[in-house]
């Protein structure tokens, strides 16, 4: 993926702090934030409010990646999951600090700050969210 730094910088608040937004008209929460609510549309213009997610969620589905992309080759095998956040939105992220055998649909997880990938040994390092089981 083209590694331009502005693209990653723009989304630091999403990657570091799970900053979503909420439609002021219908209260649906979106992550990543949307310019307008797909359901309220023009009614939501100017009414989208920032909302920091708590970081807590639940696994809806997961897989263990054995054949990874170049940027992740040293991490295989690693778990990736679709997580439903407590506030509503769903996202895709790696699961860490968990025995692969303990992974299950419905497992409660919380976000942690980790290195996601980097642009080789000379480029920028990209940090963001991963999730670990709630003890």
């Amino acid at each position, binding site marked *: 993926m083209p590694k331009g730094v502005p693209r990653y910088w723009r989304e*630091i*608040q999403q990657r*570091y*702090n799970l900053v979503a937004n909420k439609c002021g008209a219908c209260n649906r929460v979106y992550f990543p934030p949307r310019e307008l609510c797909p359901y309220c549309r023009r009614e939501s213009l100017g009414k989208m409010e920032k909302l920091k997610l708590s970081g807590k969620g639940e696994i809806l589905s997961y897989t263990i990646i054995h054949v990874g992309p170049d940027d992740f080759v*040293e*991490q295989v095998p690693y778990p990736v999951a679709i997580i439903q956040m407590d506030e509503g939105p769903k996202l895709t992220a*790696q699961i*860490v*600090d968990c025995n692969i055998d303990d992974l299950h649909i419905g497992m409660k997880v919380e976000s*942690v*700050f*980790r*290195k*996601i990938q980097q642009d080789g040994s000379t480029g920028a*390092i990209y*940090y963001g969210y*991963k999730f670990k089981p709630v003890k």
Partner: protein
Amino acid sequence: MTDIGIVSYGGSIPRLRIKAEELANVWGKDGTRIAKGLGIAEKSVPSIDQDTATISVEAARYALKRCNINPQDIGSIYIGSESHPYAVKPTGTIVGDAIGATPDLMVADYEFACKAGTAGVQNCYSNVKADLVKYGLAIGADTAQAAPGDALEFSAAAGGAAFIIGKKDVIATINHTYSYSTDTPDFWRRAEQKYPRHGGRFTGEPAYFKHVTNASTKMMEIAGTTPQDYDYAVFHQPNAKFPLKEAKILGFTKEQVLPGLKVSYIGNTYSGASLVGLAGVLDIAKAGDQILVTSYGSGAGSDSFDITVTENMKSYDRSKAPLIDDMINDKEYISYGVYAKYTDLLYWE
């Protein structure tokens, strides 16, 4: 006694561990003997996605969880490490954005071998004392690199601790701080090099012991105290032997030092070491307890602190974040091969 001190703290220790025996077997050495000699049974290893920035963020977030501070009121962040992810581009701003302290913020990254974290504490203390900031955040964290086969491979570990310094709701006052520094080249790493080098036995008496002893002695003179006045003493811990020997030299008992001695379980977390030790002590300290902390950084220098735990500790809720011992006990062992992969010992394109 001043009213400036620690308002909240938090630690971060990676879960992975490698045993001394596992390391020793690769080099045909006797792991049991080495473990006994150093007093280090196993050390922490950062996972492939952990580095000084992630450890610092986790420690800072835990510190914030335990108090009610608005991160926007943090006016300065100083992170001390020997393994900042970038040689140029501060770890401090990554943490700043990750905890919501930006943009009204003073930031700089610190380096002074293993005492860069305590130097950060001193700077935050000064900022607060000068009323320049409401709160300062000081972090000491490292993912230390050791050359394969070198003695340091048994101790170079990963971890860190974060301290929020301020004037309000202080749980432990920093009454005095004193530093003793000289140009002593006992351990160093040249700019483009991957691994440090050290002077072998030269790192003992003329380096560690000289600076820790002098700093601690002068600190107690300034504070008007003797070893008996302290409930706890935390010394920099490159292994378990040095701080225990230092305790003897100064006149502290084993009981005063052991609670702050974490190296046996996680190795030397370098810039995190003294601060992790202090965090471990604060995990069990009570109001009125007196703590002496003296760090050591090669090159060389020691920062010493005279600390008193306040009444506010009674209402401080540590349970909002894991204790140092909780993190020490939350572990997973790995083999040397996995260790080599994660600590970047394998050459590949």
